[in-house]
């Protein structure tokens, strides 16, 4: 079965594991796609404030109530607010982002390199691209968590020695959370921190396209 990647976590469980990575009381921006699910997995008692590029500090998860076209997150989804939320324009939003006022960002990824370069805005086969706030977040967020599938639909590793896709930013990723593992990006390379339930460290290494340091003890993710 060496040719088929193992079945790991669902998108929801990747988001849950990413939510556990967030510090209580921190200010966090969530990228479009899988990362938007993270808001649904934080404990409101932790007081995490989610920031949306379009000008909200302090939204909760996706709203179940009536849609208000003026109350959406950066993915266009209706959201609810938490007490103490604020609205602002795009210039102020990106002052927060580039100015180092965002504690953590969770972004999706197409490829991450061994030194923490991120590619997530441009698929060469499609061209054109959609960058949104990703480059600003990659440069400005204090901690960058990438949440993505470990391999592509064709079974190619997304964690690679060097990104082939155009970069979002160089040396910006701190943690990679996938359906198979949690991997830290350190100055000396990639280090396996946790494996998904039922996944071995060897399987993670097999589907990782860059050298992966495996400590003697690698705990299984607590979900």
């Amino acid at each position: 079965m060496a040719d088929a990647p193992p079945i790991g976590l669902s998108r929801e469980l990747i988001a849950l594991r990413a939510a556990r990575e967030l510090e209580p009381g921190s200010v966090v921006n969530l990228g479009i796609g899988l990362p938007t699910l993270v808001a649904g997995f934080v404990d409101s008692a932790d007081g995490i404030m989610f920031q949306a590029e379009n000008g909200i500090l302090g939204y909760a998860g996706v709203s179940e109530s009536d849609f208000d076209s003026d109350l959406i997150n950066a993915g266009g989804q209706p959201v609810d607010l938490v007490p103490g939320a604020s609205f602002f324009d795009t210039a102020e939003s990106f002052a927060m982002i580039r100015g180092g006022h965002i504690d953590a960002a969770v972004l999706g990824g197409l490829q991450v390199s061994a030194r923490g370069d991120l590619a997530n805005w441009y698929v060469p086969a499609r061209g054109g691209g959609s960058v949104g706030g990703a480059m600003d977040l990659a440069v400005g967020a204090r901690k960058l968590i990438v949440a993505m599938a470990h391999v592509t639909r064709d079974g190619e590793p997304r964690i690679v020695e060097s990104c082939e896709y155009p970069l979002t930013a160089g040396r910006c990723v701190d943690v990679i959370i996938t359906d198979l593992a949690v991997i830290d990006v350190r100055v000396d390379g990639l280090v396996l921190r946790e494996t998904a339930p039922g996944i071995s460290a060897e399987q993670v290494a097999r589907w990782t396209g860059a050298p992966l340091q495996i400590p003697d003890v690698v705990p299984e993710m607590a979900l």
Partner: protein
Amino acid sequence: MPAQRFDSPDDAVADIRDGATVLVGGFVSAGTPSNLIMALKRSGRTGLTAVANNIGLGDLLDELCEHRQLDRVIGTFAIRASGARTSRFEAQYRAGEAALELVPQGTLIERLRAGGAGLGGVLTKTGLGTMMAEGKQVLELDGEQWLLERPLRGDAALLKAWRADTLGNLQYRLAGKNFNPVMATAADLVIAEVEEIVEAGEIPPELVGTPAVYVDRIVQCEPIPVRWEG
């Protein structure tokens, strides 16, 4: 001078010319000047450059592509990673009929801010070492590298606010500000669509989001419902 009040969005955009650069406020469904966009469509103007955050499937701006009115888009969301469903703009981009200048969102707003604030450019780290830096100047100051981004202005700006007063002061609601207040500063002709026009003094001064000095025209319209298709 007080803003001029127009009765119809079509009249408000009637003198935007072929080939104009038009700033369009809004972020997906929030703060989007839906009636002004559709009026611009009905005007039949062509050769336009649209500067806007997003042009994708379900975005009203994509309506301008039905009759190929856009030559060029400067924006942040345009071509999705998945090609399952595509916008009209994407089809025209692929056919070489419309050009795209993709700009990081924080850089787009700062270029507009510089354009409206009399500044010659912006120095940012966003885009350094990426395709976005191609052809641009990199400055080294005190040992740090910065990418020089130039100002951006429009011939006209189409904005959406919650309400205006008779002078043209604008008040926004919820997350409806986004690009609107900065775009208000960065175009020769600024047209705002609002849901209600009230007497001067009725918007508390501290709640004015765009001071009247920037606003040339106001028009009261019922917003066209917009919802992103995801």
